[in-house]
């Protein structure tokens, strides 16, 4: 099998002339940006392994990862810090992609799951399960997924008249989010005090209690969903951006694409939310930042994933160590920064007249 790589219009064309023809076209800047983002994410992750109540040297961390460090070092690095650091990377990527999916199908930069209520739905579902049922991952995940799907159905139904795109969807979503947040508060208030405390902690969005036992399944399910989404939906969403008619006339069913994207997005959000509680802002901002960095147009799932990973990894590192002696839930950090970002975004969109 011979391969062929040719540069063309800022893209690399890859072709293999085997029995099954394989070919693809890659935007060079996108590939470079993704590589750089992943490198930066790796650096942040490594820093997260070094830092803590006990600061280790890089050499110790490398040895611990390789499996020949003293048990005390391994306990800190591999047992405690690694699951949390990896979870931040994977969950960040999932949220970034979920945001890119929703922004693409709503054709609205504000159409991210944390604005249009899907995150709040997952969160309310999760809190209800935690408060009244139990705290195993699968139970919480089922609750979060149900909450997310129910909200997705309601939002899509209520915004039908205005089309999936646009203002109405965002407004309906914001309204539902507010209602769900108060519902969540009510659930916490009525629940048994211990469970209420667990639920409230979870509701802040935190990676504090992360261990492989709890988040392992979430990471595996999430990564699988991520890859399936990328492979199956990327090109179809690119076509859908040309409008329903053009997409249909090129042989891709717009209704099915949209439904698949909503389902995939809700699953991605629910997987993360069930494991770590609601973490906002990443899904909103990662797609914008990633697209801008890559200098590309359209849906851009890969840059969104890489940017999301870097954002959540950095946010969690900052939440743990920015103020010495105080470790915040990462959700608090992202909400604080995200609020500012949302305000600037609203002002910019308002000026463009897109709202």
């Amino acid at each position, binding site marked *: 099998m011979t391969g062929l790589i040719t540069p063309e219009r800022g893209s690399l064309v890859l072709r293999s002339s085997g029995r099954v023809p394989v070919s693809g076209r890659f935007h060079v800047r996108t590939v470079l940006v993704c590589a750089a983002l992943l490198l930066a994410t790796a650096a942040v992750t490594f820093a997260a392994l070094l830092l803590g109540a006990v600061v280790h040297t890089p050499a110790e961390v490398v040895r611990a990862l390789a499996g020949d460090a003293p048990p005390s070092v391994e306990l800190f690095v591999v047992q405690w810090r690694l699951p949390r650091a990896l979870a931040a990377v994977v969950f960040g990527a999932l949220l970034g992609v979920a945001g890119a999916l929703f922004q693409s199908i709503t054709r609205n930069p504000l159409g991210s799951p944390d604005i249009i209520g899907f995150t709040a739905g997952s969160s309310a579902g999760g809190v209800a399960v935690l408060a009244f049922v139990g705290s195993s991952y699968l139970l919480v995940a089922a609750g979060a997924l149900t909450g997310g799907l129910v909200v997705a159905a309601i939002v899509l139904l209520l915004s039908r008249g205005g089309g999936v795109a646009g203002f109405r969807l965002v407004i309906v979503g914001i309204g539902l989010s507010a209602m769900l947040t108060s519902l969540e508060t009510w659930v916490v208030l009525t629940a048994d005090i211990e469970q209420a405390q667990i639920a409230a902690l979870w509701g802040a969005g935190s990676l504090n209690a992360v261990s492989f036992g709890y988040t392992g399944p979430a990471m595996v399910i999430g990564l699988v969903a991520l890859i399936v989404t990328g492979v199956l939906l990327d*090109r179809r969403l690119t076509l859908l951006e*040309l409008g329903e008619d053009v997409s*249909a006339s090129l*042989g891709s069913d717009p209704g099915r694409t949209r439904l698949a994207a909503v389902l995939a997005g809700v699953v991605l959000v629910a997987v993360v939310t069930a494991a770590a509680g609601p973490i906002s802002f990443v899904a909103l901002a990662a797609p914008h930042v990633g697209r801008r960095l890559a200098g590309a147009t359209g849906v851009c799932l890969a840059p969104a994933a890489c940017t999301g990973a870097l954002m959540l990894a950095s946010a969690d590192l900052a939440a743990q160590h920015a103020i010495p002696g105080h470790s915040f839930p990462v959700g608090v950090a992202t909400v604080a920064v995200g609020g500012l970002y949302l305000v600037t975004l609203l002002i910019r969109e308002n000026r463009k007249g897109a709202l």
Partner: protein
Amino acid sequence: MNTPEGRPGDGPTPLRAHDLTMAHDQHVVGEHLDLEIPAGRFTVVLGPNACGKSTLLRSLSRLHEPRAGTVYLDGRDIHRMRAKDVATRLGVLPQSAVAPAGISVFDLVRRGRYPHQSFLSRWGPEDERSVRRALERTGMAELADRPVDALSGGQRQRAWVAMALAQESPILLLDEPTTFLDVAHQISLLELLSELNRTGGRTVVAVLHDINHAAQYADHLVMMSGGRIVAEGSPAEVLTSELLAAVFDIDATIIEDPVNGGPHVITRHRAPAPVPTTPTKKVMP
């Protein structure tokens, strides 16, 4: 039907509507339509606003599912074919095509290759050739790297035609492609379509508004009114003052086009029918 001999693409009717009834929700826009699109010809559909011509075009291109009746593409029910199979046979330029912000002409045109691509083979040599050919034929090769939203209306429409051409489909359907263009760009687009039809042997179907453009470029003219096909044939056969009066409610004089010898329509707003006057008799005492 006029059939000048020796044209490429002549053959059995590739696209045919049988007993078509079309409706939007409860509102029926056309009933029991039968239509055959002649192979290798430039067919123009004319008719007043809301006569159902756009819906007919959408039904022919599988974008609108008719209430009853069947559209046959190469003898097969188009709504039972795989969407990708239809897309390799039939390209569509819908009425309101808006390119995403910032997308380049090249990126737009290459999306037309989707129906020919597969999961693994996403950008083969054939894709590259088709896109280059489409850009050259539409005169867009030099503008390939420009963002679509920075182009003039006429260039933008050409970029969309290039996208449909990259599909390499033998049939091309266009819904009011000249609307919103100035007259020079209208003519240049119609010349392009006509050339694609003549030299490429493509079957072209376009919904147009301008009667004289239709007269000048169509081989085959379909006149619609109130959801029915009221006349069909060569422009000379279809364009008569009686029919134009009945369909558009205009007074029209048909003269011979001094350039190409075809019909040319001179239109005037229809004067209200004169009130019959009865001579008044003076009653003499």
